[in-house]
């Protein structure tokens, strides 16, 4: 079993109107030093296999074909052996 976390970011060349809007909220809070806010996605899941290569291949397929759209997004992931702790599941 592998525990996986994926971070999906908009590619730098793609405008992020959501990030810009949120940043306006920061300005309203008086946080005048906040710049370059960009909003992405954080996804976690497990892969039920003992073989790391198989796990990595499935994660990459999942990221490339479904979780991210390569035209507008980049992804990175971490893969670690073991099941999520009870605390994390809760």
């Amino acid at each position, binding site marked *: 079993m592998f525990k996986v976390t994926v971070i999906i970011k908009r590619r730098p*060349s793609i*405008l992020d*109107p959501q990030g810009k809007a949120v940043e306006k909220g920061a300005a309203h809070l008086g946080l005048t030093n906040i710049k370059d806010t960009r909003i992405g996605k954080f996804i976690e899941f497990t892969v039920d296999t003992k073989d790391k290569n198989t796990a990595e291949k499935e994660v990459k397929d999942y990221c490339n074909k*479904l979780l991210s*759209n390569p*035209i*507008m997004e980049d992804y990175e992931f971490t893969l670690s052996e073991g099941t999520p702790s009870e605390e994390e599941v809760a």
Partner: protein
Amino acid sequence: MSLKFGVVVFPGSNCDHDAYYALKKILHTDVTFLWHKDKDLQNSDIIILPGGFSYGDYLRCGAIARFSPIMNSVIEFANKGGLVIGICNGFQVLLEAGLLPGVLLKNKSLQFVCKDIYISTENRNTIFTKDLEPNRFLKVPIAHGEGNYFADEDTLKSLEDNNQIVFKYSSPEGEISEAFNPNGSVLNIAGISNKKGNVLGMMPHPERSTDPVLQKTDGSIIFKSIINNFLN
């Protein structure tokens, strides 16, 4: 010879009945619903991927619908030259499926925009647009939060070189400028086709502009063009 439309129903589609109604009751054509879990296109001549919020728009609009069992049949049908129209969410599904190039981003304004707009027909050499008169700008509604068309420069050049830009947002008189761009789409793009011209994706809703009772019928010109040119 008669012509049969197939309207795909995904969980979360909400313009499937609008399309069915427009085709059946206003345009008097044969039309059937196609359930997303089925694979059989039921001998449809033209497939419509309707508007709505397939799979709740989770992950990205159209990203999950693209893997519905019916989509394998739709992709195969399109690759053989079959006619496919994606409207609004259906356009998003076509982009995710790779049948059309580019992506639709969140509207520049961040607002969901629901209003009547005008479109200029940029390519009259498709079955969808052959009967559209030059200098006739169609009034059709839009209703979307993510209709901001984007593609990289190479893709845009290829779209222009191959005459794949079918509709652009315009003024009622046909002026194409930022003032008449409701969502930030690059080059005011409202609809594009694939290279072969048999797959059309568009954000505006022609099916919502067919019934005279709603005081606007320009959308039916597009459907009539398809029906006339398919049968001839």
